[in-house]
């Protein structure tokens, strides 16, 4: 039998397989205590801004039926500390690094992108779910005009390929996807978290100190698959698919829906070795189905 070839070309980078970590659920030193990071197709690091952010008060985490809520609030040490610490540490692995970037204004995004452009990260992922402080705190990613503006701004300063990460909390995801494609985004990743809330009826208050938070995990997968499917049919650029992936078959589902590569988020909190387990399960699924390449999976889909 011919050997499996899981390698993929993704928005200008070579990956040995399509499995990556999702931003905010991976820390090189800590995740690396459970598995060999070098096995992954790429790693996506926690959101980083031009300057340090303190994030939200605790409790920041809640559990829901088949999912979870988080209101970490993008706590991060700022781009300089990130480059000196996490990024330096990641150099030892033969795995491309995709740095996730946060900002509150177009200027802030650009500042972080400029700093990260000078490093050897393979790609930048722009998290446009952040609130735009100049326009009343409404999320950049909820409006095609603002999404386009950020994409244009970061593309103009970046030396690296740009992935734009979309928020699912919109009426029409294809509208946003087309807007960022038109401004030259090299790829799209979706979905970020849904906006959710939980109340503790024993304590009679919201579970999160921040009241609302990002809702992720297997519970949200149907929304993610639907959006990947819709966006695949609306734009040409490659897609990183994520949202609730827990198994190798889930990964295959996203690839059939139209993803080129996938990310594992909440699953890695539920099971620290999830990214490599999912990689192995994807291989097993391919063997069982007689698929030799990732393209075979996509082509088998009768959608």
């Amino acid at each position, binding site marked *: 039998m011919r050997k499996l070839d899981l390698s993929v070309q993704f928005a200008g980078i070579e990956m040995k397989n399509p499995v990556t970590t999702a931003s905010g659920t991976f820390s090189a*030193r*800590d995740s690396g205590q459970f598995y060999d990071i070098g096995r992954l197709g790429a790693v996506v690091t926690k959101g980083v801004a031009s300057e340090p952010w*303190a994030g939200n008060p605790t409790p*920041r*985490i809640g559990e829901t039926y088949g999912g979870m809520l988080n209101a*970490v609030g993008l706590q991060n040490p700022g781009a300089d500390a990130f480059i000196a610490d996490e990024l330096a540490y990641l150099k030892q692995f033969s795995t491309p690094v995709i740095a996730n970037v946060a900002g509150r204004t177009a200027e802030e995004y650009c500042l972080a992108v400029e700093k990260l452009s000078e490093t050897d990260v393979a790609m930048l992922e722009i998290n446009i779910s952040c609130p735009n402080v100049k326009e009343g705190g409404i999320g950049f990613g909820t409006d095609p005009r603002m999404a386009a503006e950020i994409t244009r701004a970061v593309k103009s300063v970046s030396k690296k390929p740009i992935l734009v990460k979309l928020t699912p909390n919109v009426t029409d995801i294809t509208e946003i996807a087309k807007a960022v494609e038109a401004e030259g985004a090299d790829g799209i990743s979706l979905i970020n978290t849904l906006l959710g809330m939980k109340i503790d009826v024993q304590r009679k208050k919201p579970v999160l100190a921040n009241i609302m938070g990002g809702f992720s995990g297997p519970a949200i997968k149907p929304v993610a698959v639907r959006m990947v499917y819709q966006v695949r049919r609306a734009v040409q650029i490659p897609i990183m698919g994520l949202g609730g992936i827990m198994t190798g078959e889930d990964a295959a589902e996203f690839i059939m829906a139209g993803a080129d590569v996938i990310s594992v988020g909440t699953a890695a909190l539920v099971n620290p070795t999830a990214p490599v387990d999912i990689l192995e399960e994807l291989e097993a699924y391919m063997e069982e189905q007689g698929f030799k390449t990732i393209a075979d999976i996509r082509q088998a889909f009768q959608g």
Partner: protein
Amino acid sequence: MKKIICGKVACNEAIARDIYKMQIQSPELGQAKPGQFVNLYLADKSMLLPRPISICDIEEGCMTLVYKVVGKGTKALSAYKEQDDIRVSTPLGNGYFIEGEELEHHTCDYRGKKVALVGGGIGVPPMVLLAKRLQEQGAEVTAVVGFPEEAFLIQELKGFCQSVHIATDRGTIGFHGNVLELIQEKEILAQEYFACGPKVMLRALSQWCQQQQLSCQVSLEERMGCGYGACVGCTCKIKVVTEAGVEIQQKGVCKHGPVFFGEEVAWDA
């Protein structure tokens, strides 16, 4: 490498109202430091996140946990039967600093040293392993433990402590009041204090220790996501001395803690 292992429940029994003792066996269970915890992963797939529980005792191949039923997860845990499989992490967090390394101005040799272990409610379980280790290192160990009403783990503590003092909120057993009042009233003095329990208790004890210029280690609790450092969900505020002076930094309870020195903690931030 850290890992998630599949253990077998050797026993799971109520030892007080809503308080259960669970023993988990696995050849992959090694040693642990007192104050470390494990993540328990539930079989009910609607509940995704692990439940962090402190290690109460551990021997090659067998670990004892003591937990209180407070919600859905611990309720599900209480229904586990002997011989059931349970997924559990290897020990997480750093535990109490008793390794004998030089820790800034803190002592490193426990031989003959008077130490007091202060536990409140479900903060009592880690005190058992801590008492065992400190006794092994030659310390003279006193335990001061507080409960709402019903006491537990007293026999276990007596095995490693010279004396065990009990306080209950309603005076049902032992001293009527909280552990700090008991310490003050009975003048239970020690060179170093180790504590685990509700935040109000830890804070009051820590402040009292600071006034007395005594060293105090506290084990903090925070709502966790991953329990191993990946999600940045479980931060607490810690004072750190930098070139620029004292700075308040956010530290992960699961990764940098759960144990901190009382004076490091920015209780009001």
